[in-house]
């Protein structure tokens, strides 16, 4: 799987693409780690899941650990733009109760940082 990165003002938007399953977890975790290590107090990461086709239990656990690390550093991971299948998996696994979830990246940015939302609108 691939991990895209964009930055809008002070917000980092990460876009995993493909399948986040038992086979791809290790690679995804390794790519995510330095980005999480850089999270500072008050800073958020938006996970744009619009290109994520599937997430397994191991992938969900990795997202939980990412959110936990960000919280421990004073930041936060929020989720945006899930495809219907991934949204159903979040619901059935009750991971929808563990994350702040937004319908789209723009909504996530508006809730997070006006400057980032403005940067997003400017393209």
């Amino acid at each position: 799987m691939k991990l895209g990165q964009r930055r809008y003002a002070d917000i980092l938007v990460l876009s995993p693409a493909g399948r986040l399953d038992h086979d791809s977890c290790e690679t995804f975790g390794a790519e995510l780690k330095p980005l999480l290590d850089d999270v500072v107090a008050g800073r958020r990461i938006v996970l744009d899941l619009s290109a994520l086709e599937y997430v397994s239990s191991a992938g969900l656990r990795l997202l939980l650990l990412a959110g936990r690390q960000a919280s421990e550093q004073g930041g936060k991971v929020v989720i945006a733009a899930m495809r219907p299948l991934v949204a159903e998996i979040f619901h059935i696994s009750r991971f929808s109760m563990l994350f702040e979830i937004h319908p789209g990246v723009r909504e996530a940015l508006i809730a997070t940082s006006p400057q980032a939302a403005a940067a997003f609108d400017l393209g």
Partner: protein
Amino acid sequence: MRVRFWGTRGSLPVSLTSRDVRDRLARALVVANGRGLDTLEKAQDFAERELGFPLTHTFGGHTSCVELEMPEAEPDEYFVCDMGSGARPFGEHVAARQAGRAATVNVFMSHMHWDHIMGFPFFGPAYRRGNRIRIHGCHAALEQAFRRQQDPPSFPVPFSQLAARIEFVRLTPGEAFALPGGTVTPQLQDHSGDSYGFRFESRGKSLVYTTDSEHKLDDQDARQRIVEFFREADLIVFDAMYSLAEAVSVKADWGHSSNVVGVELCQAARARKLALFHHEPANGDDAIERILRETRRLEELTRDGHPVEVVAAYDGLEIDL
């Protein structure tokens, strides 16, 4: 091979309250309004065909106790996994079928936590002279656990006064143990104090009884061992006590698993049927029914060509393999 569930609840027995019964009755009456159900037969047919499971049944009930009928066993021989509170009605079943004849009951113990042994002091066949009870397991302290729960001040009848001939048989994890017309193979599982799953095989059919087992999602080797243990089984009786979110967060290391992991493991192992088991005692029938619907949906969403039938075990359920 027939599997009969006598106890399906995790941790602690539960029962419907009188308020639960009254509310179900009221909901059923609303649905039945104007249907002309003026005989018991019509009403029973209506209940069977038109009322949903949560109105006409309960998942129960008793803690873990699952009977397995081995097709080549003698008629007086019984096989059962765990002695939770479901062992009481199971014992009544044995006594009724035997009608005075002596029985041999083979018990296979996943572990000795209280909810898995609490039915034994109320297991009628243990009190009948001439019966033989063989308790199989992999734990060194198996006999001690059964004796201790009947010691004062916990219970008035000490283990030594039980009239049946009771033997303890130590099994070795990973080694097949011969049964009439088949085998059983124990498998070590991740649970406080260890637990063991059992894979039963007979006449080309297989049952895996795997309760009180946590699956660590970052341990690929352990996952592969479990997949091989489940491989192409006809039925997996699976610990689905928690949601995945609970199992990896607030209830991590509590030794239980989830419906989501059950589906994934059954799909990877090409198992045929998944029975959600060891239901969380805080979940009512509506909640378990919802979990069942969602689990079936997850299986459908993530199916890769191999369908896995999903059921939720309830006290009284029988499955023929």
